């Protein structure tokens, strides 16, 4: 269980407060107006931003003071998820050998298998620059499979993709998260993404990240903060 215990995160000119639990394996959309602190929340969980007060627990152990590399978290950023000068084998291999060493044949098999699972079979020698945007996202998701960590954070990694491609990627994320049994938090500002992907929604607005609510009910009966953001929609 991921527990945010009276967590307070410093933003530019104010604080973002969060106090809720998320269950292992849940798929959660983080929804809210831009600048409200959606990415800030993810950064705090991943360890890129320190807490001003409070704590983050995973399965009862306090990870608030752990550096990002020690947390049980994999994360996809908006961009820069792959090193552009390394081929996919090298890029993905780093998930299995963070020291950059040679992969064992069992590890290589896992790597090839992961690429196959995201539909990139046979592309292990390609560099990211020779792939389409969608393929790059797929490769990054294959690496998430290899990292096999219990928490997966997605900071709008598909924002640059077209609608059809995005739908495809959301399905793939569901698949990957299901295989890993990972708690998945995805930042989005599109309620349609939330409907397609998430069982629960964490609403970030007015300096608070509110406890998760079931997606269907929150979008059908939006609270005031969400109504203001959604406007005429829904």
């Amino acid at each position, binding site marked *: 269980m991921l527990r945010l215990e009276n967590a307070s995160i410093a933003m530019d000119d104010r604080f973002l407060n969060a106090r809720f639990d998320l269950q292992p394996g849940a798929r959660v959309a983080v929804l809210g107006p831009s600048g409200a602190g959606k990415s800030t929340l993810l950064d705090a969980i*991943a*360890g*890129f931003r320190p807490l001003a007060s409070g704590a983050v627990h995973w399965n009862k152990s306090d990870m608030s003071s752990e*550096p*990002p*590399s020690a947390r049980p*978290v*994999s*994360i996809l*950023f908006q961009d*820069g*998820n792959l*090193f*552009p*000068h*390394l081929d996919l084998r*090298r890029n993905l291999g*780093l*998930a299995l*050998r*963070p*020291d*950059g*060493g040679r992969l064992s044949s069992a590890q290589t098999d896992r790597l090839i298998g992961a690429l196959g699972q995201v539909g990139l079979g046979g592309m292990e020698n390609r*560099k990211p*620059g020779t792939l389409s945007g969608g393929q790059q996202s797929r490769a990054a998701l294959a690496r998430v499979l290899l*990292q096999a960590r219990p928490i997966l954070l997605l900071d709008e990694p598909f924002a640059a993709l077209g609608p059809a491609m995005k739908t495809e990627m959301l399905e793939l994320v569901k698949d990957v998260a299901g295989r890993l049994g990972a708690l998945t938090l995805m930042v989005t500002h599109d309620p349609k993404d939330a409907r397609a992907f998430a069982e629960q929604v964490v609403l970030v607005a007015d300096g608070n990240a509110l406890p998760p609510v079931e997606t269907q009910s929150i979008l059908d009966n939006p609270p005031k903060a969400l109504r203001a953001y959604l406007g005429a929609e829904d």
Partner: protein
Amino acid sequence: MAPRVVAIIAGLALALLTLGPVAAVLARANGLAALGAGDYQAIRFTLWQAFLSAGTSVLLAVPLARALARQNFRGRGLLISLLGAPFILPVIVAILGLLAVFGQSGILNQLLGAIGLPKLDVYGLHGVVLAHVFFNLPLATRMLLQAWLAIPDERFRLAASLGLGRWAYFIVLEWPLVVRILPGAFAIIFVICLTSFAVALTLGGGPRATTVELAIYQAMRFDFDLGRAAALGLVQLALGLGAGVAALRVSLGQGFGIGRGRVVPRWDSRGRKALDTLVILAAAAFLLVPLGMVILRGLPGLPMLSGGTLQAALHSIGVALVSTALCLLWALPLATRRGELLSLCAISVSSLVLGTGLFLMLRPFVNPFVMALPVTALVNALMALPFALRILRPEAEALTQDFGRLRATLRMTPLAWFRLVYLPRLRRPLGFAAGLTAALAMGDLGVIALFADPDRTTLPLQVYRLMGSYQMKEAAGAALLLLMLSFALFWIFDRGGRANATS
């Protein structure tokens, strides 16, 4: 945190190797008591020639930069690239080129003689200033040009649609630019000229045209008066630090100037074509004819090169390679803001002061002359470090910015990061920095003059010695060899950084 430790070690080594010699100079100097009247004259001359050189360079740069900014012509890009060449041009080579044009039997005096006018004498104050302008006019021009090209298009369009007259145009668009850029350019060139040694050594000399750096050399080599040399080192240190701090303040945020590609579509270029053409032609001739003369006069000298000269060339290549390796070893861990500030300490200490300090430090243990080549390699690495860091730091920081978080979530080890990401991604700036360092070290005629004996000389010093013994043909050949080696080293390293560089 292993990388941190490496950075701290590199920083300490840098501090030790700059502050150590400075401390040695301070300890030996015994105040300024050892200075004589000639030394005070040297101080005055140093300041005066630096002032004249910087002033002339920036004043001439204004019309040249303006002409290059507003006129488009075939070869413009090449000419602007060539403005970067003096930076890696060995001083002694440029001197030979300038002598071939302005010297006793140079082109200019032959022309003057043919029409019955008296000959010009290039030695002395005006020769020193002439050489400094040759080196620094291009620098000032590039700095100005870069700022000129950074003026937004809209302002030129606005000026055109308002139908501004020439005077209004100057006041509104050009004057603010000149006022913003010139003080910084002046200060940087002033600092560069303060530490002038090789130019003063070859074109100056005598009681009326000696710089402090040259006086240090003379005190050590001719009088073997270490106390006076140290006192002069103290003076040079104070001059360098004072002017360096001032230059840093007025030139904050300025690059070294790279402006190149775009020609601003401008509506003020018509009607100025004749004037601009004249300015550009004059500048191109001033910069290119001496270089052409080096090649022209050097070619017949190439087959005459003696074994000693070739030996010196090998020494120089070795010094350049060791300097480059040292400089990069320093630059990689120090490519941060703090590291760059630290390296600025190194630039404000002149190479002859460092040399004097190292001489004083080594003397109790070894014969300093045996150490001539290692010391030259070390001092050149220190001198090139600020430039290397200025090239590397922005890119190294961008790398951390772009991929630092990815590195953390992947739990990459420091070594994997360094080997798989840092080095490959920094290949281009590393190649460029290595090329600059190698060329600077190859052409340096400074600290080697303090330490050298006949067995351990570098190619620039060999050229100087050949000139001194009036073997002008071989000197010309050796200078051409030096020119080719400097540019070849630069080209090879820079090229190596670019080859197969995929995004």
